[in-house]
């Protein structure tokens, strides 16, 4: 296990007063707040900051950490000596359930052994719910899938210690799943206390960005490039979807930016969503003498001024 230097993570000296620790944490919490931060690893940093602050903001934990960590460097291999915490009284025991899963093994090893778990949601015996995001491909909504996910979950062992388990679960992703839905796996959250029931695992569904397709609830959005003559004269064009190719009729006179709705061909839920095609007319380049000639013929023989309406 690697030793974690919480002082280094918050950027404060080892003898920094509590007020300074708080100030440093707040400054960094603002910088790395996952909802607003532009930093690439904001979420990971925020978890590290929360962990560091959970220790350094609590006088008892900080004192224990200071005693134990003397002489260690960040990243150095670390094993706490047995009964190292014997001389300390911890008023707030254990790790708060919902956050414990985000903390490191180092934290769990040190502070997970402090007797009974935190009161609160787990006090009546029911295990904590675990809420995680699951990132799926849009294709999964068409075909259904089985995904393997790994989760870190706190558990109370036989000695009353909180240990972090990594659990791997195979989860069935049903066809027709949509962004924002929650897959509830009953009894797969944190274990209960005593005879208490285990909590549920809640997986919040999100789709990875797709290079062509976007989902809007049940509907599927797609930009469809068409040639000028397809738009002007109408045409039947193939559209590639995750479950195959669909032939779509472009009505004559379609303009760039207009939207075609194909009923029932969106995400195949019950009822199925619609497929929304945004028409984008793409001009062929005038890159050959023949192409130039065709454009010149159109310019000469078609009375057309695209700015006529806008200059009125």
């Amino acid at each position, binding site marked *: 296990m690697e030793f974690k230097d919480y002082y280094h993570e918050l950027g404060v000296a080892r003898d920094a007063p509590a007020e300074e620790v708080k100030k440093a944490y707040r400054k960094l919490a603002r910088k790395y707040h996952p909802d607003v931060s532009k930093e690439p690893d904001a979420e990971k940093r925020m978890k590290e900051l929360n962990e560091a602050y959970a220790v350094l903001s609590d006088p008892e934990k900080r004192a224990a950490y200071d005693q134990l960590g003397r002489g260690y460097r960040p990243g150095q291999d670390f094993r706490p000596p047995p009964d190292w915490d014997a001389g300390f009284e911890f008023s707030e025991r254990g790790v708060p359930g919902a956050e414990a899963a985000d903390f490191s093994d180092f934290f769990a090893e040190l502070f997970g052994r402090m007797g009974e778990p935190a009161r609160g949601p787990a006090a009546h015996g029911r295990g904590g719910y675990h809420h995680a995001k699951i990132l799926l491909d849009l294709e999964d909504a068409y075909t259904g899938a*089985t995904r393997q996910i790994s989760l870190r979950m706190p558990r109370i062992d036989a000695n009353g210690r909180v240990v972090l388990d990594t659990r791997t679960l195979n989860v069935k992703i049903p066809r027709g799943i949509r962004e924002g839905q929650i897959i509830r796996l009953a009894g797969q959250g944190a274990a209960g206390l005593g005879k208490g029931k285990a909590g549920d695992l809640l997986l919040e569904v999100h789709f990875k960005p797709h290079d062509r397709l976007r989902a809007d609830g049940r509907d599927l959005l797609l930009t469809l490039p068409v040639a000028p003559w397809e738009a002007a004269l109408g045409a039947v064009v193939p559209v590639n979807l995750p479950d195959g190719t669909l032939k779509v009729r472009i009505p004559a006179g379609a303009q760039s930016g207009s939207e075609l709705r194909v009923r029932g061909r969106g995400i195949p839920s019950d009822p199925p969503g619609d497929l929304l095609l945004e028409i984008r007319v793409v001009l062929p380049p005038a890159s050959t003498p023949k192409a130039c000639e065709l454009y010149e013929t159109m310019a000469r023989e078609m009375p057309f001024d695209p700015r006529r309406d806008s200059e009125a």
Partner: protein
Amino acid sequence: MSDDVILIGRIEEGACFTLEELCAACALEQEWVIRRVEEGLFPVSGSAAAEWRFNRVALSRARRMREIERDFDAVPELAALVADMLEEMDELRARLRRAGLA
């Protein structure tokens, strides 16, 4: 559990969580939520606490409000205001994504 077991979950949508479940999912005391609902800082449907139902937006709202209150010693009203703005931002970002602009 053996590795080849495939778990089949229930798909939840809309206001599907009870007060107890919201608290279990966000590591909150029920009292904390009740106080904020009574002060109008936490929107909910249903009149008595036993009838309250929460959706997934409420799950992230509860977590955000708790973190803002705790991390910045913010009063609940300020945490609710920040949560309102973050929710608005989520909505705008979702619209950008739908328009293919993000």
